[in-house]
């Protein structure tokens, strides 16, 4: 290779991946800043502003044509910009919710924000990767930061336990993932996802499909699809609540986006679509049924997020352009409602253990006491259950309709039935919030706090977005234009 021309395209590439650059540099700057000014009030501001700047940049790039950067390592523009905007938006909302939350529980650690920024860097790389090397590097950067974020509160055993579980199981799944990449490289001779397509035109060898299977195991673990979901409830329960919101949405978005790219570009559809359909059924049934019996609300939301991964897998199993764009739209709706739901729960915990031991019943009657939290939670729950006219309904339609078109009528039927089951546990939250008489202890705790204005703004913003996504078709047409 002629080295004099090696960096000729670097300036253009840097300009095209400005969001990645901003977030990474802000993360590095925060590390240094926090070392000199520990727990400074500006730390969350820097993180939030960097993420917002990246978000604005990516939104402005959604309409532009798809391109490549850094020797075809990353994709830019188009669907990659949409996914990046989703990840960054989720990061912005999470930082706004996290700042007062960490202060309230007395663990205002500056490193948390640089970790969020570094995790976002990993997600940006993963969500827009076009090469298995970048997929892996992005996945690992994201995962390592999330392990740390899960466990950085060490006041009780809960958080440490969940971080350790997450780390061990995550490292194990990384092994599968890496082995899969090695086998794929051995079978095709390339790491480039778009170049891989040409080498599997004749159906692919047994080594190739073994590699695909291992890669799928790694991805399904990261998106917490059954039967690789075991870590999810424990981790979501033990992690700081707003961080749970962040990792349940942004990391899933990035992992699903990467999976969609690999499925769409590199793999001939007829061979794996039924496999994904089976995983979707198991995930939906298992997530929804086990969620019914949960008394801890964070654990319940964890099983609900498993179920939602199942719904998204329905869209992927369809294997059509509509299915993929539906999955992207669903990810957007899911991000908004889940961040909102965890945001409300973050304000409603007073067990001093990050809500990991608090039962749903301790929140009885809170809906009238704190009407803002009660009513926004009502919107999030109705949307998660998929009631019209909220975004959740349109999202479910966007993933189930392509499955029916692709001939998976039974899959869509299972999806609709399990969503009906899910209405029970979502609406039970509202029953407890509004219709149960409060007990004295929680009533006293509930009056003892004020809702920070920034958190209230985020919750109201999420509610407005959910209504907008439910009644307008702009976003669904936008995702439809990507494939």
């Amino acid at each position, binding site marked *: *290779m002629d*080295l004099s021309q*090696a*960096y000729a395209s670097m300036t253009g*590439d840097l300009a095209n991946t400005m969001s990645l650059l901003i977030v*990474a540099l802000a*993360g*590095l700057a925060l*590390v240094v800043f926090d070392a000199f000014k520990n727990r400074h009030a500006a730390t969350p501001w820097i993180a939030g502003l960097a993420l917002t700047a990246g978000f604005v940049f990516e939104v402005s790039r959604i309409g532009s044509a798809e391109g490549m*950067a*850094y*020797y075809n*390592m*990353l994709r830019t523009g188009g669907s990659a910009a949409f996914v990046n905007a989703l990840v960054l938006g989720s990061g912005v909302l999470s930082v706004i919710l996290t700042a007062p939350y960490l202060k309230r529980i007395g*663990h205002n*650690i500056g*490193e948390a924000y*640089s*970790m969020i920024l*570094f*995790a976002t*860097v*990993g997600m940006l*790389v993963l969500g827009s990767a076009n*090469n298995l*090397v*970048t997929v892996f*590097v*992005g996945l*690992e*950067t994201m995962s*390592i*930061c999330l*392990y*740390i974020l899960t*466990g*950085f*509160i*060490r*006041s009780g055993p809960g958080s440490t336990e969940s*971080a350790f579980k997450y780390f061990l199981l995550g490292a194990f799944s990384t092994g599968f993932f890496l082995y899969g990449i090695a086998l794929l490289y051995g079978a095709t001779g390339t790491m480039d996802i778009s170049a891989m397509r040409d080498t599997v035109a004749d159906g692919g060898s047994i080594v190739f499909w073994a590699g695909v299977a291992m890669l799928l195991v790694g991805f399904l673990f990261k998106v917490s699809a059954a039967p690789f979901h075991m870590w999810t409830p424990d981790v979501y329960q033990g992690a700081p609540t707003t961080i749970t919101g962040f990792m349940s949405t942004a990391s899933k978005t990035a992992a699903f986006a990467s999976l969609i790219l690999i499925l769409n570009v590199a793999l001939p559809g007829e061979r794996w679509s039924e496999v994904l359909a089976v995983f979707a059924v198991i995930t939906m049934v298992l997530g929804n049924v086990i969620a019914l019996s949960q008394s801890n609300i964070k654990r319940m939301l964890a099983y609900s997020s498993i179920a939602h991964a199942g719904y998204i897998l329905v869209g992927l199993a369809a294997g059509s352009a509509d299915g993929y764009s539906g999955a992207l739209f669903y990810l957007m709706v899911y991000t908004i409602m889940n961040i909102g739901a965890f945001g409300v729960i973050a304000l409603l915990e007073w067990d001093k253990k990050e809500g990991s031991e608090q039962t749903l019943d301790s929140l009885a009657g809170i809906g009238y006491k704190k009407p803002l939290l009660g009513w926004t939670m009502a919107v999030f729950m109705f949307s998660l259950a998929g009631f019209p006219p909220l975004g959740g309904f349109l999202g479910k339609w966007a993933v189930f309709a392509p499955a029916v078109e692709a001939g998976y009528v039974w899959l869509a039927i299972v999806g609709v039935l399990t969503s009906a089951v899910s209405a029970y546990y979502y609406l039970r939250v509202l029953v407890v919030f509004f219709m149960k008489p409060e007990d004295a202890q929680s009533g006293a705790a509930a009056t003892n706090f004020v809702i920070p204005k920034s958190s209230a703004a985020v919750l109201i913003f999420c509610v407005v977005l959910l209504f907008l996504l439910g009644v307008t078709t702009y976003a669904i047409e936008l995702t439809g234009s990507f494939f």
Partner: protein
Amino acid sequence: MLMTAPIMFFVFAIVALAAALGMLLSKNPVSSALWLILNLFCVAGLYLTLNAEFIAVIQVLVYAGAIMVLFVFVIMLLNLAELPDLKKVEWRRIIAFTMGMGLLSMLTFISANALDMLPNPPSLAAAAENGSVTNLGKALFTVYAMPLEIIGILLLAATIGAVVIAKRKPV
């Protein structure tokens, strides 16, 4: 010279397998670690017989060097008094092991030779062209420059996280 590389391949392969078994089966973690070192060196030898010198060197440096030090540190933190005693190494066992391994590898080599299943490594020239340090460095700093930078961030995040989590006094 022509036949030594394939013969050595089978010697290393058999000893690597035996060492892996030894690591799994030995009750004392210290001998487990020693077996693991033997295994890692044998895998490095395998790479050498396949003309992949750079990977062989890296294998010794990274695994046999850095990762083993980590293992030994962990073993040091264990309560050694509780562990079963190390057996005294007998000369007879060493000789038996060496001879058994030698015989077994010769047998596998001869059967593989008869079945025409000998490894077929790339020629030294071809291996040097693809796997040399120069080419690796060029690729790392041009085509793979972006992932390399991200790995830098990954390692920084891991370091900071380790400090945050391992600090004596929780914040």
